[in-house]
């Protein structure tokens, strides 16, 4: 049978080989196109922004009706907003992950509900978070604080840094939960048992054995959350961001500028697009560099801690 392959059989083999290669080539082409999409967008923003970027651009405020000067207040606002967001989102996210992995059993209906809600929270459109921030934080919580503590004066019942950050914290909560949960699950069971066997309490085991071991994952989640939060615009549109402010925000109830919103406004509401284009590219580049650096660091930490987990160190 092997000696004489009939011509028909050999064309069949040829056809099959052909089909086999076609699928491999097509699917590889899809990968290439996606990588090209990433490369094109990055290269275009880098090329367009490189001419604008200078020390002055990142360190000075805008001038001449947003056609000259820099974006320092927007960088400051973005950083302040994401820091506040992190302070709120990370402890809550880590606590949720600890609950899901260490306290709740797999069958617990509460834990399952928490899981469903975390997954669905990640899918809520960002503009809905904006509506929520306005309806809940500003109209309800903020106005409530004003009524009771400030005699009806508008102190917290208005768009500001605090409400934007808290809105973003809820939006990024799932990112922290998912990354932390994965990290905690990859801590070997033996370490838990050893700690408990040595007489440690459950909480001591969590704080002294499990969390230090899962630190890489928690850090990854935090960085990804920061990167996500720094780039979001829709949730802060109505909850605190402003187009131009002469002063930097100093209080929680001050409005602030942000890089993403700056790009949005310059791109959609500028009377003279050609004149603002260099500024627009520069701002987009600063935002992209910020989020990309954070993402790359997160990817690096995660791959390192995964490799270590695989090696069993």
């Amino acid at each position: 049978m092997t000696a004489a392959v009939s011509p028909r059989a050999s064309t069949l083999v040829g056809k099959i080989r052909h089909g086999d290669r076609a699928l491999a080539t097509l699917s590889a082409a899809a990968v290439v196109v996606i990588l090209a999409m990433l490369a094109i967008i990055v290269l275009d923003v880098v090329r367009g922004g490189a001419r604008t970027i200078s020390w002055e651009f990142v360190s000075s405020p805008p001038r001449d009706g947003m056609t000259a000067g820099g974006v320092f207040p927007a960088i400051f606002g973005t950083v302040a907003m994401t820091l506040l967001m992190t302070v709120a989102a990370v402890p809550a996210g880590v606590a949720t992950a600890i609950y899901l992995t260490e306290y709740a059993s797999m069958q617990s209906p509460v834990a399952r509900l928490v899981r469903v809600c975390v997954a669905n929270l990640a899918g809520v459109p960002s503009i809905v978070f904006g509506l929520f921030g306005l309806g809940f934080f500003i109209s309800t919580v903020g106005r409530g604080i004003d009524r009771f503590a400030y005699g009806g004066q508008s102190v917290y019942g208005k768009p500001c840094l605090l409400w934007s950050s808290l809105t973003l914290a809820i939006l990024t909560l799932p990112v922290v939960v998912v990354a932390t949960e994965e990290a905690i699950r990859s801590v070997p069971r033996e370490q838990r048992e050893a700690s408990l066997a040595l007489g440690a309490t459950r909480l001591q085991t969590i704080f002294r054995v499990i969390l230090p071991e899962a630190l890489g994952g928690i850090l990854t989640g935090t960085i990804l959350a920061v990167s996500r939060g720094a780039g979001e615009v829709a949730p802060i549109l109505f909850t605190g961001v402003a187009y131009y402010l002469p002063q930097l925000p100093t209080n929680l109830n001050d409005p602030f500028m942000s890089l993403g919103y700056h790009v949005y406004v310059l791109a959609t509401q500028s009377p003279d697009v050609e004149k603002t284009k260099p500024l627009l590219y520069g701002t987009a580049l600063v935002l992209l560099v910020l989020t990309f650096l954070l993402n790359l660091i997160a990817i690096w930490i995660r791959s390192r801690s995964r490799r270590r987990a695989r090696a069993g160190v």
Partner: protein
Amino acid sequence: MRMASQVTMQSAPARTASESRSLRRRGGWGERAIELSIRAVALLSIAAILLILVFVGKEALPLLTSSDVHREVTFGSLFAPLKEAGGSAYTWQPVSEVPKYNVWPLIVGSVKVTLVSLVFAVPLSVGAAVYVSEYARPRVREIVKPAIELLAGVPSVVVGFFALVVLATWVQDTFGTEHRLNALVAGIGLSFAIVPIIFSVSEDALRAVPGSYREAALAMGSTRAQTVLRVVLPAAGPGIAASFVLGFGRAIGETMIVVIASGNAALLDANIGRSARTITATIAQELGEVVVGSAHYDVLFALGGMLFVATFVVNFVGERIVHGMRRRLGTTS
């Protein structure tokens, strides 16, 4: 990963009741308080979902109950053709002498842009997922996966800006579209945002197919391509379908890309070469300028509420499909 904790749980009943009680009692009151607060904080995500529903709903409620609002618009009239003479019966024109609230142009706009984005994103993402899970060497996989994650990390406002200055010009030169900013430009831009999610869910689904399926197919003389097309893809089918569903949910809720690149004219029109206005872009553009508590304000919250419910249902369905498939394939993690 999940296996480890399941083993722990299965061994739990082996512990006697008194033993486990003593383990729980070991900590003091301070410890109990901290544990309690961890449990309480864990409920935050449930609270968040409920609060979103309640507070978005609360601001939209006057649309159903207030007679002041009803003089201008009712929930039913959002969907009914307009009766006034002049202009189309399907017009979204909330800021005019006689405010016109008909949501069909917005729904059509959202669906149009979303479908365009799926047409571009689905073949690319599924193709890439097939390559990464079935053909790529580990080294290649370790480069491609983070790169696609990086694409997910591009802020949507930057994608929107790119669509505005680069894609829009390219699309108009290539297809000669009527409007420079249109559903096609926004849809292509949107595909940048949904490729990562469709890719990662599809790739997870393909990798959840046990190796024994592939080995059996290959052992029976199938080629790699036959194995992929007739065994692996059908087995992973529900997961891949779920990735479309989740991609749809992500696309219909995306705001910044469409608000910058779609042109924002509320036309009831199937032509993707013409300008489109989505539900999300409408909220983003109009809420900043409305009077709090006005009929327009309530309508915008109602739109947000509908969007929330729609994406919630879509995501829930997507998640259920993924879970169902995993359970059937016996790969839980």
